[in-house]
Structure formats: C-alpha cells, structure tokens
C-alpha cells in the first residue's frame, strides 16, 4: 500500500478537527465564544496555509494526482494550480464570511458552537468539491457542503422565514443533487469511468476516441443542471432569493459565495477537462444558460424592493457572467477565476452590510432602510457604494476587470452575441446598483432613524474592510491577481 499524501487533504482534516474541537469545547469543556473563535480562526488559518503552501510545491513538482491503492486507476483528488487557487479561495471566502457573521454566533448562544462547526464542515465539503478528481468524490463534497448549509439555512428558527428557507433549499437542493448524480451515472455509462483523470479516466477515454453523442450528452446536460443549480444559474435559480432572504443574514455570505466558488470550480473541472472534447456542444448550452441567467437575474433584480433578494437575483446575473467565461473552455478559466475571486468578496461585503443594517439573524432587508445611509454612517455608505459599483462593473473596481476578462474570453471564443447581451444587461443591472447609491447618498434618512447609530462589532467591520479593500485594490492594481488567475488552470490530459 502506498502512502496517503496528507498535505492535499490537510484542509479537510484540519477543518473536521476544528469542528469537532469546537463542539467539544462547547459541550464538554463549556468554553465560550472566544474559544470557538480562536479554534475556528486557527483552523481556518492553518487550512488556508495548508492549501496555499501547495502553490509553491506545485512550482517544484508540478501538478499531482492523488491515488490511494496500488493500481493507480482512479485518482480521487488532484493538486494543480486550479485546485490550490479554488481551495484557497473557498477557505478564504468562508473565513471572511464567518468573521463577518460572527455576530450571529453570539446571538445563538449555545447553538453557536454547532453553527461554527457546521460552517467549518461546509467549507471542508466545498474544498473537497474543488480538489476532487472523481465525480463521485465531487458529489460527496457537494452533498457535504449542501447538507451542512441546509441546516445552516434553518438555523435561526425564531425568525419567521428560516424554516421555509431551509425546506425550500433542502428539497430543491436534493432534487438538483439527484439530477447531478444521474448525470454522473449516465456519464459513467458513456465513458466507463467516474474519474476525470487517470489512465482509465474520462479524459483518457476521450483521448483515443471521438466522443459519441447520446448518453454522453445526457450525462453532460444533467451535470450542468445539477451544478447550475448550485451556482444559481437561471432557470435553476429560484431557490436563491427565498433562501437568502430567509436564512440567517450572517450565514448568507458563505452560502452565496462559497457554493458559487465550488460550483464553478466543479463545473469548470468537469466541462473544460473532463468533457473538453465536447466543448462545441456544451458551450452552446452554457452560453444559453449564461444569457438567460444574465437577463433573468437582471430583470428580476430590478423588480425587487428587498436588498437581499435583489442581491440574490443579481447573483443570478453574475452567475451568468461567469458562465460567459466558461464558453471559452479552458481559456476562460482565468477570467472566471478573477471574476469569481473578486465577486465572492463583493458579495460577502454586501451581505455583511445587509446584516449590519437588517440584523445578523435574517429577515427582510427593505431597500428603504438604506435611505440616507451616507448621513447615518458615511463609512458604511462608502463601502456600499464601492461594492455596488464593483458589482455594476464600473472601472477602478475589481468588478470591471472581472467583466473584461470574462467578455474577452467569450469574444475570443466567438460568442460576441453573448458578450453584447451580457454587457447590455450589465447596464440595465446598473439601475439597481445605482438605486442603492441613490438611496444612500441622494436621499435623507428617515427622521426616526436619522439619529439612531449604526453599530457593528469589530469582527464585522474588519471583514467588511477586507472585502472593500480587496474590491478596490484589485480594481486599481489587478495585475497580481490577474497573474495568479492566469496560472490557475486545471491540469489537462489524463495525468500521469
């Protein structure tokens, strides 16, 4: 038997350990929130470190497939720049999201420990998703994260809509998982393998045979649907607004950003590596979904009067933008990563603001509550403005660079129409991003609220600051991140 390489799965091990420790600390040792925070912080920090040190390792030894067992048939995980970047991003986003929503932990009292543990486990699941080299492994990661998040969505049952969010998320999520799984099964039928890499993997299967349509396309289609649900692409997006609105406010950033990151990582891995040879077929579907997502997301967002729901729909549109990058196949991956990497933090930042304004445990966040924000809290309004402009894709924010990358990829791949649809919708989308600025800057606050101070704990402010700084910094000086994402390509071919 050969050795298990522990470094690639160090993140999972650490996160699991952390989750268990926190539970023990809470239940057995009766330690308070501070202890959980320390454990969670260390766990996340270490797992982030563990994820990232591999970047330099990759520079030395190159991409690695990891097998267990002596036959080397079915690699379960793959360590390439793609995995490292995506994994690091998931952990970082999850960490920032947890930090920004720490206020919730306080309000949950004892159950806070469970919440933190679930969040850590969800992050681990997401991490599995992005590093997996096998579809079943990917499914397990996906389910791990999803199930954890179903629970998280229903965590604040004292809120009126939390349970509704949970059951909607759960039923639809399970449905989508089943579809995804069916896709795996059919692709297994088509290729004879559930592994992407390896001498008997999917890529190897295609390397000496032209892809046959039929079952193969069925499998691809169903997998696209399953992952499309996770990234909330239209028409599989309808859960998102309801869940974002009903779930605990502080937990939404993770649900929104983390799942998107992992979902896109999985989608990119499956499509641009596994089924790369069918790109001519699936790219069209992805393009159609992208266009639909962008348009539907934008139109629905315009009609919203609730900030979180608006963000959810805007998230649908953003999913469309990211799908746009994917039509270029592997060439679109850097653009996708840049977009995703920056958008994740924009999203976390905005949801943090929403949780500051409307409370950490969830519920409605009417747009009217942002009226005159600039007078009540100039800093918060400034942050909101930056984030809104970034989501709108205005230059000097990371959102702009992201859009350029995405559309450059699409145009390069010959999908000019998609770029035009996307960009024009982006303009329509500006309408609702600007509405926030209008409310915050051009209106006077409710007299009743004018003097009410807006407070947020230091953790929340820190997380928000990180998100805003990230957004602004990579808007002005995007080059380091561009270089990084430019390298974060998945391993092509079937490996060793």
């Amino acid at each position, binding site marked *: 038997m050969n050795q298990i390489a522990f470094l690639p799965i160090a993140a999972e091990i650490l996160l699991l350990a952390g989750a268990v420790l926190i539970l023990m600390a809470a239940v057995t040792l009766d330690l308070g929130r501070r202890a959980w925070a320390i454990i969670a912080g260390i766990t996340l920090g270490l797992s982030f470190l563990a994820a990232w040190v591999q970047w330099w390792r990759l520079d030395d030894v190159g991409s690695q497939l990891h097998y267990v067992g002596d036959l080397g048939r079915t690699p379960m995980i793959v360590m390439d720049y793609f995995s490292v970047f995506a994994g690091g991003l998931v952990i970082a986003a999850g960490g920032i999201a947890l930090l920004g929503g720490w206020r919730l932990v306080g309000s949950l009292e004892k159950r806070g420990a469970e919440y933190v543990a679930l969040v850590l486990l969800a992050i681990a699941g997401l991490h599995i998703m992005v590093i997996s080299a096998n579809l079943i492994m990917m499914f397990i990661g996906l389910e791990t994260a999803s199930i954890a998040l179903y629970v998280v969505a229903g965590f604040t049952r004292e809120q009126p809509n939390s349970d509704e969010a949970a059951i909607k998320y759960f039923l639809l999520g399970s449905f989508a998982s089943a579809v995804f799984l069916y896709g795996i099964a059919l692709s297994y039928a088509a290729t004879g393998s559930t592994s992407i890499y390896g001498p008997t993997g999917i890529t190897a299967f295609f390397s000496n045979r032209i892809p046959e349509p039929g079952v193969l396309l069925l499998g691809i289609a169903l997998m696209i649907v399953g992952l499309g649900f996770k990234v909330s692409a239209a028409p599989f997006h309808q859960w998102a607004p309801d869940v974002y609105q009903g779930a605990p406010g502080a937990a939404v950033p993770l649900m929104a950003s983390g799942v998107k990151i992992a979902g896109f990582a999985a989608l990119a891995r499956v499509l641009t590596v596994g089924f790369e040879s069918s790109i001519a077929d699936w790219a069209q579907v992805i393009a159609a979904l992208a266009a639909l997502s962008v348009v539907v997301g934008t139109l629905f967002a315009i009609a919203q009067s609730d900030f979180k729901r608006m963000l959810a729909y805007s998230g649908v549109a953003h999913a469309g933008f990211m799908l746009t990058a994917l039509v270029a196949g592997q060439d679109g991956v850097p653009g996708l990563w840049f977009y995703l990497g920056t958008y994740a933090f924009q999203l976390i930042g905005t949801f943090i603001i929403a949780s500051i304004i409307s409370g950490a445990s969830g519920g409605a966040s009417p747009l009217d509550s942002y009226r005159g924000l600039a007078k009540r809290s100039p800093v918060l309004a400034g942050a909101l403005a930056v984030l809104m*402009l970034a989501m*709108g894709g*205005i*230059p*000097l924010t990371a959102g*702009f660079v992201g*859009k*350029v990358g995405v*559309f*450059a990829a699409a*145009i*390069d791949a010959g999908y*000019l129409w998609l*770029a*035009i649809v996307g*960009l*024009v919708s*982006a*303009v*329509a989308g*500006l*309408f609702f991003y*600007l509405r926030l*600025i*209008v409310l915050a*800057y*051009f209106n006077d606050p409710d007299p009743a609220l004018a003097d009410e101070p807006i407070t947020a704990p230091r953790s929340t402010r820190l997380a928000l600051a990180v998100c805003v700084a990230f957004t602004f910094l990579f808007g002005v000086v*995007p*080059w380091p991140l*561009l*270089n990084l994402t*430019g390298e974060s390509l998945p391993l092509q071919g079937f490996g060793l």
Partner: protein
Amino acid sequence: MHSAFPVIALLVLLPTVGAVVVGLLPKSRRELMLPITTAISMLPLAVALYIMWEFSAADGAAFQFSESVAWYEPWGIGWNVGIDGISLLLIVLTAVLFPLSILASASITKDVKLFMVSMLLLETGLLGVFVALDLLLFFVFFEMTLVPMYLLIGIWGSGNRVYAAVKFFLYTAFGSALLLTGIIALAVLHGNEFGSLTFAFQDLLNLSISSNAQIWLFLGFGIAFAIKVPLFPFHTWLPDAHTEAPTAGSVILAGVLLKLGTYGLVRFNLTLFPEATVDFAPWLAGLAVVGIIYGAAVAIVQPDVKRLVAYSSVSHLGFIVLGTFALTSQGLQGGVIQMVNHGLTTGALFLLVGMIYERRHTRQISDYGGLAGVMPLFAGVFLFMAFASIGLPGLNGFIGEFKILLGSYLAFPVMAILAASGVVLAAIYLLWAYERMFTGPVTNAANAGLKDLNARELTILVPIALLVVLLGIYPKPALDRIEPAVENIIERIEEATGHESPEFGRIDDLPAATGENSP
C-alpha cells in the same frame, strides 16, 4: 519621443493626489475646501501649460511626451499615453475649466468635501481620457468620469436630480457597454491576426479588419460616442443632466465631458475603422445636421434657460460631428477647434446661468426681464458669450463653424447648407432668450435688487472671455497644432480606403439645393 520625466502621469495623477489631500482635510474646515481645491486644480493647469509650451507644433501628428509601461502582458494592456495636437487642446481646455468651475462652486454648502473630491477625480478621468493610448485605459478613464459626475448631479443637483443622474449614468453606460465590447473585440482581432492580445492603440492601427467587422466595430464605438456627444437621437439625457447638475457640473459636462464623444470618434472611429467611416460618414453627417437644426429648434422654445443652453449644445455638437465626418481636413480641423470653442463658450454660459441662479434660484426665463439695467456687467458678459456661441466672426465660435461648413460643403454640400441654417437658429434662440431675460423693464420686483458680478465671478469669467477673443482673432497657434494631426488622420483614411478627401478648387455639378436664391 520619450520624455525622461513622466509628465503625463504627473498631469493625470495630480488631481487624484489632490483629491486625497482634500479628503484628508478635517471636515470642520469647510471654508478651506474651496480655496485649497482651486489651488490644487491650478497644478494640472500649470503642467498642461508646460506641456503646451514644450509641445512641438511641427510634430503635431505624433504622440509626444509618450509614456509606455506594460501592465499585464497576456492582455497587452499598459500605461500607454501620449499627446498629439488634437488632445493637446482638449487637455488645456480641461485644465482651464476646472479651476474656474471649482471657483464657481462657492454656493455649495452640502458636503463640500465630497464635492471637491468628486471634482478632482472627475478631472483625473477627463485628463486621462485625452492622453490614453491604450484602449482599455481609455475606457477606464472614460467610465471613471461617470461616477463623480453622477454624484455631482445626484447630490448637488436641483429638482429632478436623481432622475437626471440615473438617466445620465445608465444612458452613457449603455453606450459604454457597446464600446467595451468593441474594444475587447479589437484586442481579440489583434490576437487572431498577430497572436497576442493588445489594447495599445498604435498596435491596433496595424490591424487589417474586414469591412464587415469594421461595420460592427464602428457601430459599437460609434453608438457609445454618439451617446456621449450626444448625437441626435441619443441626446435626451443631456438636457436633463445639464439642467439638474450644479453649475460646476454643467460646465464640465458641456465643456469637457461631451467632448469625450467627439474626441473618441476622431481618435478611434476614424483611424481604426476607415472603411466603415467612409461608409457611415453620410449617415452620421446626416444625423449631425438633424441634430443641429433640431437642437436649435427645440432650444428656441425652452422656458428654462439652462435647458436652452443644453439644447444649444446638441446643436453645436452637431456641427462638430458634421465637420468630423466630412472627412476633409478643413472639416475635421474645424471640428477639433470647435470642441474647444464650445467648451469655452457654453461653459461660460452655464457659469453665467449658474451665477444668476444663485441669486434668484430660478431658471425660468419668464421670471427674469430687464436684467441689463440691474446688472449691466452681467448682461454684457452674457451677451458676449451668447454672440461667441452664435458664431460671431472675431470670436472663437466662428472659426470652428466656418471651417466646418467650408470643409463639409466639399463632402456633403446639401448637408452643409442645411447646417448653415443652424447659424440663423442660434441667433434666434440666444437673442430671444437675451431679449426676454435682460431687456425691457424690470417686471419682477425680485429682480430689482440683484447685485452685479462680484470680483470672484469676474475672475472666473475674464479668462474665458480672453480666450474667446484670442481664439477668435488669432487661432493660428491652435490650428497649427491641430492641422498635422488631422492631416495624419485624413491621410490614413485615404490610404486605407482609397476614399479621396475632396479638395478645394474642384467644381462639382451643383446640387439642386444651391438653386435657392433670390427673393
């Protein structure tokens, strides 16, 4: 021609640094904001004047002071900047108008700091647009102007400001979307042809773009710029934005921001898509002529003086576009110089309207009357600027219009003749407005006690007036710098398309329209 010192970077970044400085000022020292910001905005002016001084007119076609720093190789994007004869004047115009319009913002009391910061950031954006030789960089600056202007209109505007601000933003952003698509497509074309993406303008000039692609790209760029210009029928954001914006906003909007559109057309559409340019020229010239007449006609009946001036911009910008798409050296030169002229005169008119608005808080023409007796100096300056705007020879407006008309007659005689009627209409709308506001007896008691221009206001207006006269009487220095750059563009079009720019002294069959005549 590389200058050792990155003077353009200095020019562009000075206002941003200034913005940071102003941003760090304590909020309580509100009274310091205006003088400090004005002083800061004098720095780019000094740099701009230095650039103008050092600029070699003989090499007006070349990009001077150019700087080139690669930023991200895979995309071929970098800090590529340079100044040629066309951008030179617009830079100086920008640098001149900013201190003046900041100085004219003494009546801003709400959130002064943010106002000043917005102004300075706006200046960076505008200066950046005129120096950028990298299309993505250009786009960044192009869009960067949106947000400060949006805030200027939305926060410090009047009445219907939110509507105007959002409309301004969305409308121009819509154009930007197409522009961005076009820019990326260009870079991709470069990638297809030469194997590497690039956004560098001078590299993109080497592309051989198919006629079909040129048409689409031209449209993408063209619509974006047409909205910015604004060319009829994309103009409706303009009256709203101009009218609701605070004085400084209107001045910059009319004076500089609209020029982004015409500048873009000249700089990019003409050079990058010569074939499409030749194909589209009659259409754009036609729209320009419609805009000239339509804008003027609509201006005549406006009850709101600021709206009137706004619509006059539609008309005047029509002239610029007409001159541009005449594709003759004269027309194009006229178009470029007219950009500056319009910036000065319309800017001044907005300043004047702002000054009277600060006194009376109304823009309705009917609320005024007989002001010439109450504030003769103001009336005099207003009339002076009105005549400059009408295109009175001896003042700046004439030079541009005359060149445009002569130049476009060569290419589109009928359109030039129709455009010339704009000259008549301009006299009607401005003089009628003047008549109603300034002459006759003082009918409204509120107007009786108005104070004439004070020293600060004179300080603002006198430099513009001097420039108006100077450019009217001795435009040669400016024209000398424009001409080589313009010739360069025309030559490029001729080489690329075989289109022959019409020459003077060649007799065509006369179009029927010239048969109009005798009483």
